[in-house]
């Protein structure tokens, strides 16, 4: 366990991406199979250990220490595995020594164990490990490393280790299973490249840059096509050899959450598009809002009612594969023609194409962007007609030009200590607007949009102006004359019966701190209600 604990420690505290890649590649070189594969799977969140779940770890520590003390500790540290690793009461009779089994044995033992046996095994190992070893064990079991290690970075480390292109790894990845013996054999030159075992693999997606004012001068509108930017989630629908899959743009397989859509993928190919909630109506397809889509997100199982009330819909942007033909090298405009023809043959209740916009110059596009026909449009996309479909975020090919956000001035009411990187700082803010003179009503929560320096100032303000504490939450002085005003930016606003104010914002963040503004001049609830009416 020491090697893995060391790796976690150094990775966690190594800020530079390149240094992380070096560390990972070095680990892969030093550590034999199958340990390196399991460790990598844990880091890539690709390791499932059904015999032990976080709730059971809480029970283990609950049997050893007071629940209230544990709650205080967890609240402070902000990470379950780390809290348990640090607070685990060592039994004096067992000298803690790192002679617990290594990574491979732990994983294989737990994978063969039942849910009844799993926690007891972990408990016995915890007693034999020192705090870094306990941390490594618990992270191995639960995942969730919070060390800025994306799946992409891990794949890059593998690519660097084996001197291959990272896209080769990405395309293979979904067909591989820990401890990836075939993959390592290929990367070390002792075996053939694994045949992609997964039908319907994910293809790395192409992403855009936010457009700058200065870009417009450089770019010739004649070289570009434009289309709406739909406010759903970017997905890839793939079907090959009778297997249908729906992936997020990071390659997570979300097929299980959208059986209604996945069943309708009756084609052979791969499409890039936006997942929305929509159904055909009398005047064309009626597209729901993002909050309708939210009813369907992050669900492991889906009820018939959810499927009926919020049907999943795919609005296509691009085509990557048509039958056996890989279209990614074609220019965008040629792929679009193929896409139109392809989608015409699909079920119109589930698929359509995102229409291209007619515009002669940037001013005309700006007018279109300022007045989109549907609320679910969050701006426009600008795509170079000649651009092939390139994985990653290539420069100068695709641009997003988002609608300007809504802005309101609101007053800070409550602050909560952050988790993870921000544990120990009051970094989650509930803000309110005036319902009546003198009566603030909370309308939203935001926990980003400010710099680290601003965070320190707000944190100090919260500590100096606390009225009451409720566990990790402090209520902060907020009245017409005394209080901190935030300018809050958000992307949309809906009615909500779950919130006292009756409104719910989408993607709120702090856009500016208004230390200068008297709280009495913050916005009123009526203003927000008018914004909803504008959205409808």
């Amino acid at each position: 366990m020491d090697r893995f604990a060391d790796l976690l420690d150094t990775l966690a505290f190594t800020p530079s991406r390149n240094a992380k890649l070096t560390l990972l590649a070095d680990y892969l070189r030093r550590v034999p199979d199958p340990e390196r594969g399991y460790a990598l799977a844990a880091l890539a969140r690709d390791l499932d250990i059904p015999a032990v779940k976080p709730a059971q770890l809480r029970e283990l520590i609950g049997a050893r220490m007071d629940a209230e003390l544990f709650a205080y500790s967890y609240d402070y540290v902000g990470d379950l595995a780390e809290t348990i690793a640090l607070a685990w009461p060592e039994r004096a009779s067992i000298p803690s020594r790192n002679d617990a089994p290594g990574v491979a044995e732990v994983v294989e033992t737990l994978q063969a164990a039942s849910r009844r046996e799993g926690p007891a095994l972990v408990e016995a190992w915890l007693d034999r490990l020192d705090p870094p070893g306990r941390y490594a064990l618990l992270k191995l079991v639960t995942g969730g490393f919070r060390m800025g290690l994306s799946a992409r970075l891990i794949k890059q480390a593998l690519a660097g280790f084996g001197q291959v292109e990272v896209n080769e790894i990405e395309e293979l990845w979904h067909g591989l299973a820990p401890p990836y013996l075939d993959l390592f054999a290929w990367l070390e030159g002792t075996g053939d490249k694994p045949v992609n075992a997964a039908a319907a693999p994910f293809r790395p997606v192409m992403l855009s840059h936010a457009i700058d004012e200065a870009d417009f001068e450089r770019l010739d509108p004649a070289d570009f096509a434009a289309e709406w930017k739909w406010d759903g989630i970017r997905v890839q629908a793939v079907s090959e050899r009778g297997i249908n899959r729906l992936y997020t743009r990071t390659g997570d397989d979300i097929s299980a959450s959208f059986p209604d859509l996945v069943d309708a993928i009756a084609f052979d190919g791969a499409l890039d598009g936006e997942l929305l909630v929509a159904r055909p109506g009398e005047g064309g397809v009626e597209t729901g809002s993002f909050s309708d889509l939210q009813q369907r997100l992050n669900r492991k199982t889906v009820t018939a009612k959810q499927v009926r009330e919020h049907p999943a819909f795919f609005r296509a942007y691009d085509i990557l594969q048509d039958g056996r033909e890989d279209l990614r090298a074609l220019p965008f405009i040629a792929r679009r023609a193929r896409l139109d023809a392809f989608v015409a043959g699909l079920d119109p209740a589930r698929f359509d194409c995102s229409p291209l916009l007619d515009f002669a110059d940037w001013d005309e596009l700006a007018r279109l962007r300022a007045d989109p026909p549907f609320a679910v449009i969050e701006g426009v996309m600008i795509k170079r007609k000649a651009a092939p479909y390139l994985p990653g975020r290539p420069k100068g090919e695709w641009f997003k030009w988002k609608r300007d956000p809504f802005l309101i001035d609101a007053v800070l009411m409550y602050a909560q200590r952050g988790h993870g990187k921000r544990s120990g700082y009051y970094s989650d803010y509930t803000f309110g607007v005036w319902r009546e003179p003198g009566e603030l009503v909370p309308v939203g929560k935001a926990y980003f949009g400010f710099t680290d320096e601003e965070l320190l100032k707000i944190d100090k303000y919260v500590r100096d102006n606390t009225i009451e504490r409720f566990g990790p939450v402090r209520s902060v002085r907020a009245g017409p004359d005394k209080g901190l005003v935030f300018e809050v930016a958000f992307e949309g606003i809906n009615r909500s019966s779950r919130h006292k104010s009756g409104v719910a914002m989408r993607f709120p963040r702090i856009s500016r701190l208004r230390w200068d503004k008297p709280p009495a001049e913050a916005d009123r609830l009526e203003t927000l209600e008018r914004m909803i009416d504008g959205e409808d």
Partner: protein
Amino acid sequence: MTPRPEDLLVPRREGLYCPPGDFFIDPVRPVDRALITHGHADHARAGHGHVLATPETLDIMAIRYGADHAGATQPAELGEVIRIGDVTVSFHPAGHVLGSAQIAVERGGMRIVASGDYKPRPDPTCARFVPVACDVFITEATFALPVFRHPDAAAEIDRLLRSVARNPERAHLVGVYSLGKAQRVIRLIRDAGYEKPLYIHGALQRLCDYYESRGVALGDLRPATVDAGAKGDFAGAIVLGPPSAFGDRWARRFPDPLVSFASGWMQVRARARQRGVELPLVISDHADWDELAETITAVAPSEVWVTHGREEALVRWCALNGIAARPLHLVGYEDEGD
């Protein structure tokens, strides 16, 4: 009749106040009469009328604020019983930094010990903490959570020296608070057998000189100035400075610096990462969770008052162990001064 403890010491806006003695302990704003436990800035402030503290604490205050930091000063030797108004006070070692003391306040059979900041484990740079029997023990709670269990400081120094050996081309910048932590870390580095020059930020110089003058040998210390050498000269060197300096232009003079920080807060990963620390060293001048519990058990007071830090957890521990305890809400002490 034995007085009630709250007649002897009460929290006030300025700090902990003793009505029958008319003095404050570690007041956070200027008062007429102040008793100071130790020289850290959140406990020892300039501008009081009269200050009573150990000779070392008075020296440290004079170094930091100038000789005229108070109207008048009076040294208190450890163990000496001093009458002030209707109470007697005495100072006892707290083991936190050089000169740090617990202050016992006594009247009519009631004794309260305000321990200030303390650490029970040995520290080569200051007198060791002694438990003082009392009716009410006022304890700090800086690290009062079961997750804070400070490892052996010598083992942490070993990690530093191993990292220095592994990275001979990089300068190790070790963040240390200028009073106490700096000198302790330097002494521990020497105890580990490292005899090469150590480079220090200007903010550390006078206090290091003072520790030397009090018999704490710190070895070859050199100013970490540019004229101390060209950039390459700091490769493989250990440089100590206040953590705030590492974000400054000051830090640019070092080759590929590796930032380290010696603090009890480094126990929590998120804390280390927030500060951009690459090599967190868990070295604290405060009692950790187990030491807080052991100290309260050893002192065996009839009541515990808990201040600055995570009061609620220590109050909870006392409740679980059948010890009367309550939080003492004092304002103005730095949450994070370790």
